[in-house]
């Protein structure tokens, strides 16, 4: 695993609970409930030491409110800032949504185990995201995009409840016309603006061809989705050790200390949040 900034700070003997001041440098409203925040660590030395892998998360502090774990949506190939795609649901995310460009937040991390990007190189890729599940997968998608020549066929299946709830819709609308990405989008409930597929993301599997010997899969979405998408991937004979899922838990400290993100006999914050499907099948409470 690549050395990331957590390890750098650890070797410097810095208090791992200490958040670093960071500035919100851009806010993009994506849907009614989600915004994309571009965040830049203020201290130059800290900013330069901050590196991460797709699938990892940060602990975001809104001082006075608390911390929340949020997966990084931007690609590791982009340095100097991170993007966080955040739904307004809890106290910390609610407070973040009230912030303005230029406001200060705190960051710790990155934490956890990401997607095995280097192992995925040289293979076809099948990515399946439902709803907010695109947030961590977006980092992987953009990273693959930035090193596109390293990968075989790349297929992306995206599902959302309604057209208005599709995250990053502008980017994906443009990608529909690209030849180097096979992108399929579907919504549960179409409206007059939608001329694409209607139905669950699992239906899109009828449309795709997969080489089972040479494909890595990744799934991210609401917990209910995993089982059904996994079944479709197994029908295509994908290897359970080459399918990856990202598990959402209450990762409060990020370091395997506070105990809140326990999943079976492991902790999502340090053993995951990305697990191979085989690992997840062997974890009580995972699915």
């Amino acid at each position: 695993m690549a050395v990331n900034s957590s390890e750098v700070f650890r070797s410097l003997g810095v208090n791992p609970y200490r958040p670093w001041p960071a500035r919100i440098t851009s806010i993009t409203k994506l849907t009614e409930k989600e915004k994309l925040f571009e965040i830049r660590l203020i201290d130059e030395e800290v900013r330069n030491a901050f590196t991460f892998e797709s699938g990892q998360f940060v602990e975001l502090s809104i001082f006075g409110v608390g911390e929340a774990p949020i997966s990084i949506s931007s690609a590791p190939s982009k340095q100097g800032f991170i993007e966080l795609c955040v739904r307004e649901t809890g106290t910390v995310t609610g407070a973040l949504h009230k912030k303005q460009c230029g406001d200060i937040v705190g960051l710790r991390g990155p934490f956890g185990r990401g997607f095995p990007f280097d192992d995925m190189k040289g293979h076809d890729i099948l990515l399946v995201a439902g709803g907010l599940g695109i947030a961590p997968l977006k980092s992987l998608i953009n990273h693959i995009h930035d090193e596109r020549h390293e990968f075989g066929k790349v297929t992306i299946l995206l599902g959302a409840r309604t057209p208005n709830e599709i995250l990053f819709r502008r980017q994906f609308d443009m990608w529909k016309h690209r030849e180097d990405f096979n992108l399929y989008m579907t919504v549960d409930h179409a409206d007059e603006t939608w001329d694409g597929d209607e139905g669950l993301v699992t239906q899109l599997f009828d449309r795709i061809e997969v080489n089972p010997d040479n494909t890595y899969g990744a799934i991210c979405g609401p917990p209910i989705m995993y089982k059904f998408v996994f079944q479709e991937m197994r029908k295509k004979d994908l290897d359970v050790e080459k399918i990856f899922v990202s598990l959402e838990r209450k990762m409060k400290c990020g370091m395997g200390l506070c105990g809140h993100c326990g999943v079976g006999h492991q902790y999502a914050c340090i053993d995951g949040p990305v697990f191979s499907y085989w690992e997840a099948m062997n974890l009580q409470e995972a699915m």
Partner: protein
Amino acid sequence: MFFRILQKESVSDLIKGLAQTREVIGPRAKGSEFVFDVIENPDDIVLDYTTTLLPPKKYFLKSKEEMMRYNSKTGQVSEDEVAVEPRVLFGVHPCDINSLLLLDKVFLGDYVDPYYKARRENTLIVGVSCMPTQMCMCNAFGTGEVHDGFDLFLTDLGDSYYVTCQTAEGANLIDKYCETRAVEPADVDALQARIKKFNEAFVPAPDTSEIPLLFDAKYDDPMWEEIGDPCLACGACSMVCPTCYCFNVRDVQDADGVSGTRVREWDSCCFSDFAEVVGGHNFRPKRSDRVKYRFYHKQWGYLSRYGEVLCVGCGRCNTACKVNINPRRVLEALTKGGEE
């Protein structure tokens, strides 16, 4: 390591000597119970105590502590040096010493917890032998003896203590502050008699073989509802547990609305919202889910990461739980069955 014999009447000399340069903390009576507390007068210490209400954990992982001050406008965070006066924990039982070694694996591991570390480094440990109570089950986990994690250990031989000097600092202190004598063959004989007496005093230990395997094999067994449904979700088991380390972190804002303090407090996986994520989804909605998880983590989760069970058999949860949920009952239920 070397050994000395310390007469019991000389223990107060040792405590007085230690108190010259450090705070002395030890077991003393509180009503009909015992607690770890500051020992102002050496006569207050009770070395033949049964067990304390709270384990020594509270001196390393405080029940509530300030982690840092923040300024929400600038994002600047200030940490005070974790100031810990030199101190000695005097009279710690083997189970509790072993519990600190288990906490060390968590808080002095890949990510070092600076608060825990500072307190650990400034604290000497003087252990003392015990006799098992009806609640004790260290015999199930091998935690009734210590091989590490103390400076001095006093094994009760009646009128004297057989002193194990584990660290040079411990040896120097006992040399400096009190009279001891060399060990004679009769003392070793008394030591062996004491070990036998100790072992014979236990309630037989529950079977612990293949516990992780049985946990998974009986993960959906009705035993969990039977044991776990009555749980009051009071968290007392975790608070009195020497090895429960889960904590919660929250911000306490000052009246100015700008600055504040980030604090952490003991938490329990038996509390209803422990595994609830934003949006309201609770990964362990039922009491029995949470009770099962607590034991699953202690007997298997921690073991899978650190190679040991996260229970030292001190028996405190057994006393604290008002609805009879305890490790002995869980282990007995797990190992029940299979009779020919």
